[in-house]
């Protein structure tokens, strides 16, 4: 059965801390790994990773994929209260099908 597992499910840190969110996957016909941020309603796209070992970076957020060990991490440095959200990862398995993890709820306290 195709599955994507995220950890931790919930994380509470102080503003300024650095956090690492984990995503492991087991899907057939894996093509790419996507990260989304969901604040209140619609998930917004963050990154898509297709190659192992190549870090993608956007401001304080970065992500990397390991296709041998079947996982990805999302790092957020110098966290701010606006980073509070649910972070979703999804594995693309062709035909534009995404298999989503259950999400990590990140809370940043001032």
């Amino acid at each position, binding site marked *: 059965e195709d599955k994507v597992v*995220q950890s931790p499910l919930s994380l509470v840190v102080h503003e300024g801390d650095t956090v690492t969110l984990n995503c492991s996957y087991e899907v057939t016909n894996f*093509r790419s790994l*996507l990260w989304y941020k969901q604040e209140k309603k619609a*998930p*917004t796209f963050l990154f898509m990773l297709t190659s192992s070992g190549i870090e993608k970076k956007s401001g304080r957020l970065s992500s990397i994929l390991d296709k041998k060990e079947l996982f990805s991490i999302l790092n957020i440095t110098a966290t701010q209260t606006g980073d509070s959200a649910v972070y*979703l990862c999804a594995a693309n398995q062709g035909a*534009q*099908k995404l298999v989503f993890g*259950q*999400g990590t709820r990140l809370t940043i306290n001032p």
Partner: protein
Amino acid sequence: SQTIHQWPATLVQPVGSPLSLECTVEGTSNPNLYWYRQAAGRGLQLLFYSVGIGQISSEVPQNLSASRPQDRQFILSSKKLLLSDSGFYLCAWSRPTYNEQFFGPGTRLTVL
């Protein structure tokens, strides 16, 4: 630029009543379209996707159906709602050969 609309934003329906949720995309042509459901505290479950008018693929057997009467319109329906149909329904689109999907604002459905 592309935008995606969903309505209604919230809906409360009695068990056994029909359902129709609508999604439209602007600013692109021939998009792939998707319906997802998100249960409380859970990830997104793909319900249906469509690669063209009248072409619907169902991912999970259930009480719901989908239709695509126009290129940029996707409709989620049910003839008789169940309590288990409650959830947050998200529509998404993608370009035909791209993996990134972009989501609409969602509809929160409560079946009582």
